[in-house]
């Protein structure tokens, strides 16, 4: 029972490209954070695929670290979203370009 490695890499890259599209095209802060999550998932998938290809499970350890990093990043990102909504009553990322200093 084998899966071609190129399938997994293609799938992971398609997911990553969708995430890049989301970060570049969306202007709502929440959707940008969601797109970052999608990109992190794509990379984690690549690591797990690498862990099955090579002997040893080191890729799954990296997956665990990516998971912890995603949790930390989302906690701070959502705190920033709440603060931004309190101050400007909008999640439009272009408002932040009016910040000075």
């Amino acid at each position: 029972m084998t899966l071609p490695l190129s399938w997994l890499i293609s799938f992971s890259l398609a997911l990553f490209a969708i995430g890049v599209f989301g970060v570049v095209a969306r202007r709502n802060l929440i959707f940008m954070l969601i797109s970052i999550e999608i990109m992190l998932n794509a990379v984690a998938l690549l690591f797990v695929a690498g862990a099955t290809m090579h002997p040893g499970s080191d890729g799954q350890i990296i997956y665990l670290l990516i998971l912890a990093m995603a949790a930390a990043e989302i906690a701070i990102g959502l705190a920033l979203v709440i603060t931004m909504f309190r101050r400007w009553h909008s999640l439009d990322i272009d408002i932040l370009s009016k910040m000075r200093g």
Partner: protein
Amino acid sequence: MIEILFILSAVIALACALITVTSHNAVHALLFMVVMMLAIALIFYLLGAPFAAALQVIVYAGAIIVLFIFVTMMLHQGQRSIESEHQLFSLRRAGLPMLLSLVLFIEVVVLLYSGEQNALSTSANSDSTKEVGMLLFGRYHQLIILAALMLLSALIGAIHIATPSNPVQGEQ
């Protein structure tokens, strides 16, 4: 058999990711993202990593997305926020970013299939979870301490940023 399962879950994950990225309603987007996470968990299982699959369901779909949904519901203003989102994002004006990420994807696929094919065995080794545990508390135990420190600092930072009575809020 495994190929069919992989293709099915990959198609589901990609479709859900596309809907997530282009949706105008944040709650719908998050629910589609849960489906995407579950499809990726299935792929982890097919790859012979049941521990990663369980973590994907528990931590991503169970904790991170729920946090997202709580914040979204806190900030959601019903029809008004959906209308303002229509103003902020429309598929017609998103052509250039779509083209760019499509080019990125096609580029790597071309690169991938121009070389020799590499096969990946997916023998479901039942010792995978045990092995991860041995590595986690053996060779990589310092990384666990670092991850814990990172989570702690993120917790403190999030509390500091989101507390309404901090000096930054008082300036207004």
